[in-house]
């Protein structure tokens, strides 16, 4: 038994605000996802958060635990609730590939029968308001619920390709600056993306995609849909042209220079989920790319 997608939800700030609490945004996506999936929330056995840029850079507890509390899933031991269910939650950071890495872990647990449902949540926003340089990621969150598949539908193959020689192409880190107001220092988030990064991402993604197709014994013509990462800026557009899959290579409309980060693939998924293209496609590839450089791919079959 594999795992299939039961529901996907996304959330963005209301009224056009950019700065929001990433945990609240992720919680909103998770609640919508639970409502849409129509399952008992207590059946969620694993909850993984994969957001990178989190509210006030909270280090502990895991953001996943805070989301679990906010959505009220198995808050305490079985004795209190009268059932015998529990939820384990943790954060996973793997840049733009985090969402798919977490899905792979959930897929494994569902396949082995350890859990009935798993939820992957992701959300990014500027950690401290106006304390960053070159932060071009949209405030956005997404949640995906995975469930067991009774037939062969769902995820069937996961692969990650690594390109450590490009690890310094994208680096985001904090530095301490003494130039704050009234002489107060500030921890500033600095996002350093080399000019060559988008092109290198396209090269790595193309190489990985064809490597993945070889491993899965498929050709590009067999693929009905590619659900990719939406960052860095220009990545989807260039890769789409390179592989020649225009309409079936899902791209979210751009608004300025801001891009979706870890939630990007989920936003692309939501687009084809809503217009029913996802369910009507036979072979779907999830293609995510992140700093490192890591490229993670998964094959999903209906």
């Amino acid at each position, binding site marked *: 038994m594999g795992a299939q997608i039961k529901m996907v939800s996304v959330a963005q700030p209301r009224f056009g605000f950019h700065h929001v609490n990433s945990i609240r945004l992720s919680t909103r996506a998770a609640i919508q996802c639970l409502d849409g999936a129509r399952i008992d929330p207590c059946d969620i056995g694993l909850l993984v958060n994969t957001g990178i840029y989190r509210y006030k850079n909270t*280090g502990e507890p*895991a953001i996943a635990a805070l989301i679990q509390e906010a959505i009220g899933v198995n808050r305490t031991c079985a004795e209190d609730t009268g059932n015998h269910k529990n939820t384990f*939650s943790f954060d996973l950071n793997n840049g733009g590939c985090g969402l798919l890495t977490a899905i792979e872990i959930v897929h494994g647990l569902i396949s082995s029968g350890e859990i009935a449902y798993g939820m992957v949540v992701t959300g990014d926003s500027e950690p401290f308001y106006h304390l960053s340089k070159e932060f071009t990621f949209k405030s956005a969150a997404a949640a995906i619920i995975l469930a067991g598949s009774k037939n062969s539908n769902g995820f069937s193959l996961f692969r990650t390709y690594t390109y450590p020689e490009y690890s310094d192409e994208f680096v985001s880190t904090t530095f301490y600056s003494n130039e704050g107001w009234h002489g107060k220092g500030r921890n500033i988030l600095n996002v350093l993306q080399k000019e060559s990064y988008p092109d290198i991402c396209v090269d790595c993604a193309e190489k990985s995609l064809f490597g993945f197709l070889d491993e899965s014994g498929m050709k590009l013509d067999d693929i009905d849909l590619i659900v990719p990462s939406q960052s860095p800026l220009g990545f989807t557009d260039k890769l789409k042209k390179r592989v020649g899959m225009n309409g079936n290579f899902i791209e979210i409309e751009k608004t300025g220079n801001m891009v979706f980060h870890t939630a990007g693939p989920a936003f692309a998924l939501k687009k084809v989920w809503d217009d029913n293209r996802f369910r009507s496609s036979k072979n779907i590839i999830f293609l995510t790319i992140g700093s490192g450089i*890591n490229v993670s791919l998964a094959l999903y079959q209906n």
Partner: protein
Amino acid sequence: MDWKCQIESIGVKIPGKRLTTSELMGKFKIPCIKKFGLLTGISERKICSTGEDSFSLATEAAKNCLSHSKYRADELDMIINCSITKYKDGLSHLYEPSFSALIRKNIGASKAITFDISNACAGMLTGVYIAEKFIRQGIIKTCMIVSGEYISNLCDHAINNITTSFSSEISSLTLGDCGAAAIIERTADEKKGLIISGFTTLSKYSDLCTGRQNRNTPGGKMKTKAKKIHQAAISESAPIVQEALKKCRLSLNDIKWLIPHQTSRSSIISGANHYLNCFGEKPGQIVITLKETGNTASTTHFLALYRYLNERRFSEDDNVMLLCFASGLIIGVVIFKMNEMVYRYGSTN
């Protein structure tokens, strides 16, 4: 095939600089805490000096682990970094790329898949939990779990903010720095395999211990309702431990070494007494390694294992239980039989 996994080797990196509890207490302008060393059992902790940080500790621990291992770096299939603190180049927090991706590059683990996880002080055992899933499904054969904690900087914030012994930042004074790494490998030997059980997050208690980055000063801060989280952890963990023991058909008497999360001596002892009341039995020995290193966050279990391995205290086939409590509130149990690793660390038993 459903594979089992076992711990193949362990490595640590302890920074050289010492900070004694009396030196730490001397930093307070107005003495407000009494008998801290006596209550916590911590007489000193090791802290990072210039040039050391979470990343350097993790990298050195990974190298140390490889030096005890039969595997070369390029034979590792996966690296999971599990640290809470992600400081590189001093107190600069690294968001991206992941620590594990940079460790891969530094140690030459060219084919390893990498990602970071964060689960407070349960980080490394959560790493074991994930590695076991990947190994059991046959996706990988070897996985390195690594963590580097430059967490003593929380003391600096605490010293400036603590005014009474009831302060929510008191727990920050127990912290020390350390790096730890372990290689988890596939095994066909059912008897030596890890039993992983009870990993659960009781989010009702998620507000009892919170840590985050400072806005105006380098480093972070942590606020803990120490008494409440201790009470919750002890009372909630007893049925989870019981279930784990049942799963591997053992009683608490059969556990030769119980290694709990190293918070403070008094809380470990009161927890042990609670277990004695609940189970009517006790493990062979409860491991406390706080005295010289303090609470080293996610690395405590593997630091304790490494130390006892080097002190040749373990024998092959000893039953060991790792018990984690972490903010969230996370409770997890890992039980395993000590394997032939003991001989590589010099044991003759």
